[in-house]
């Protein structure tokens, strides 16, 4: 455990150092890489050790001591491996991709910082620390999306991402308040133990709904999914790491971690949200033109799958899908980056006339898309089957919806592939080793992680108890995927447009169901309007006051010399005159005349005797 802590702290420190001194000492970047690699290696070790926890005192509130609790258990170890692995591969990729950028050192610092925060989030074993790292991850995302802040689009996207996830964080904060109010502690273990009685159960209901809100924000579910397409304005490796594999998985991870907290009602809501999101995402991806936007909506859709799995009751399916998705989605993003880097085109339209060939990238891209569509024996197939099984057992109707989403997934994936890589291939380019090697590593994971990491599945698969149901699920899953690919082939490779999508649907898809426009009209414009009005009032009051003061000062100072003469001189002269008068009175006493002195002496004395 201590080794892990050292490695993580090392990563944190190296990211800070790189941020501060990276411009001068370029090699500090490699420190971040080294520490990420160390963490990767340690994650293997983490799999082997038994559950361990460690806590650090943080602060005290009266008698109650709040601590940072970190824990390693199988789930955490798996995520630890996932995050370190993908982060490391992305960083190597970035060495080539961000070669020409002038602010490379900050980029690597932010990446390192993000990895640190994500690892902290994974290892947290109490609500307050997970929230702490949750927010840190949000900040890293903001910094990285808006990395090229000179571009307005990027800066705005970063703000949008941060604020939208903040809405979810509001839910998290309220949940924290409730948790502390009911349980007087933040630790997962203690709360799980306390959760026996009915009182806690009611609390669980509300708390779980709020935590669901947080997960919806972070994992870009309906209705807070609008930030993810915009986040594509950041560098591609960032999209791969944060917005495909890790940060957006944080919401799923949170739910998995404290799954005991979730009541049937919340799970039902979660299932609905997940299915809706899966459909919205896959539908919107159908008509997108930019490669990265397609992948972004695809991520939203797949996260919807994971959320539905959680809602249906299977944490196992969700985490499995999270893992495989992390690998093939980051593979897809990184290959998209490779394509863009070589041909300088970011959208499908630009590739219409081009006939390109990229030996390695093309193959790994294909592998990633096959995994995404759920074709056996790639990993995506196994995890998707698990998700579909779970949802089938929960609700037939939602299962059908997910089958539809699977079909759409396959369709848009191969629309993407066929639009970029044609039969005729003239222009050949390929990226450097630093790019292709991570791509190949990821493709290996995409192929084998289904079978190797979860070998039981093959057994369960081949001989399952509910033979009939399993067959239905298996067949519908495979059928929808193959049909999707087939239709995409027909439409985009053979160019036989059998169905023309109605203009309305096409726009609905392209604009992502107009969520951005709706939110803009409903929320942003009213708020801007109010803000303008408030600003006016502000000006009125503050400016008004300042003008008044200015006038008063002018009047006073204008009549200054008058005041000076009349008032001040009078006072001074008067005091002088009074003084002289008094002095004249007192002068009598100093007459130098003996008799006068005698008089004063006698009568003064008598006066005192009589009066006192």
């Amino acid at each position, binding site marked *: 455990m201590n080794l892990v802590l050292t490695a993580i702290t090392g990563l944190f420190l190296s990211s800070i150092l790189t941020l501060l001194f990276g411009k001068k000492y370029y090699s500090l970047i490699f420190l971040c890489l080294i520490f990420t690699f160390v963490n990767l290696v340690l994650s293997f070790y983490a799999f082997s050790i038994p559950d361990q926890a460690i806590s650090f005192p943080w602060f005290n509130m009266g008698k109650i001591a709040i601590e940072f609790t970190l824990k390693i258990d199988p789930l955490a170890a798996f995520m630890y491996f996932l995050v370190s692995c993908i982060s490391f591969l992305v960083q190597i990729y970035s060495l080539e991709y961000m070669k020409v950028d002038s602010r490379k050192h900050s980029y690597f610092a932010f990446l390192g910082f993000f990895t640190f925060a994500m690892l902290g989030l994974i290892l947290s074993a109490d609500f307050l620390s997970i929230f702490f790292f949750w927010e840190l991850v949000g900040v890293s995302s903001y910094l990285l999306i808006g990395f090229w802040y000179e571009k307005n689009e990027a800066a705005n996207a970063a703000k949008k991402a941060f604020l939208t996830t903040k809405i979810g964080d509001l839910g998290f904060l309220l949940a924290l308040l409730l948790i502390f109010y009911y349980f007087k502690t933040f630790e997962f273990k203690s709360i799980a133990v306390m959760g026996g009685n009915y009182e806690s159960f009611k609390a669980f209901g509300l708390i779980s709904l709020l935590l669901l809100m947080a997960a919806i924000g972070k994992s870009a579910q309906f209705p807070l999914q609008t930030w993810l397409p915009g986040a594509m304005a950041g560098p591609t490796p960032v999209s791969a790491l944060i917005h495909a594999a890790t940060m957006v998985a944080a919401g799923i991870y949170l739910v998995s971690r404290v799954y005991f907290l979730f009541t049937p009602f919340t799970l039902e809501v979660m299932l609905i949200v997940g299915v809706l999101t899966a459909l919205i995402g896959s539908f919107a991806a159908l008509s997108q033109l930019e490669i990265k936007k397609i992948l972004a909506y695809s991520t939203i859709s797949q996260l919807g799958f994971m959320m539905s799995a959680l809602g249906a009751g299977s944490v196992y399916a969700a985490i499995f899908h999270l893992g495989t998705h992390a690998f093939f989605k980051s593979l897809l993003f990184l290959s998209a980056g490779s394509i863009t880097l070589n041909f300088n085109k970011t959208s499908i339209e630009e590739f219409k006339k081009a006939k390109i060939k990229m030996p390695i990238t093309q193959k790994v891209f294909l592998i990633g898309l096959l995994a995404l569509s759920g074709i056996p024996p790639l990993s995506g197939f196994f995890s998707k089957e698990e998700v579909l099984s779970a949802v089938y057992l929960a609700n037939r109707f939602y299962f059908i919806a997910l089958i539809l989403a699977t079909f759409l997934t396959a369709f848009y994936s191969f629309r993407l592939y066929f639009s970029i890589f044609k039969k005729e291939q003239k222009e050949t380019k390929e990226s450097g080793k630093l790019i292709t090697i991570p791509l190949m590593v990821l493709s290996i994971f995409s192929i084998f992680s289904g079978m190797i990491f979860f070998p039981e599945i093959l057994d369960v698969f081949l001989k399952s108890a509910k033979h009939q149901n399993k067959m239905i699920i298996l067949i519908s899953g495979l059928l929808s995927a193959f049909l999707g690919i087939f239709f995409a082939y027909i439409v985009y490779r053979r160019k036989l447009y059998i169905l023309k999508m109605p203009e309305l649907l096409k726009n609905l898809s392209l604009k992502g169901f107009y969520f951005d426009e709706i939110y803009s009209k409903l929320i942003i414009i009213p708020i801007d309007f109010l803000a303008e009005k408030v600003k006016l009032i502000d000006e009125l009051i503050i400016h008004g006051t300042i003008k008044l003061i200015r006038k008063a000062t002018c009047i006073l100072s204008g009549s200054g010399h008058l005041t000076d003469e009349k008032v001040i001189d009078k006072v001074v002269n008067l005091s002088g005159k009074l003084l002289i008068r008094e002095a004249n009175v007192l002068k009598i006493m100093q007459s*130098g005349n003996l*008799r006068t002195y005698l008089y004063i002496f*006698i009568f003064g004395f008598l006066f005192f005797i009589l009066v006192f």
Partner: protein
Amino acid sequence: MTLQNLLILSTLLFIIGLYGVLTRRSLIQMYMAIELMFNAVNINFLSFAYFNGSEINFKGHVFVLFIITVAAVEAAVGLALILAIYRRSNTIEADKLTNLKH
């Protein structure tokens, strides 16, 4: 001879002496009035000593003796001063001695 009568006597003498100090021009006349005041005070003390106390009491007499002695000494000193003043400014009128006036 009651206490009251003697006291009235001493008061009157005192006032006459006071009047003399304040009104006389000559220093010696002033001084004579001061002596008168001394004697008035003496009578005051002796009258209290005689009429007070059921037993014979000599406290008042002792104090009066002191006063007489002091008066005598003071007479010597005072007259010496007046002599010195006369030698210096050739006058002993109080009004004329205004060296202390600014």
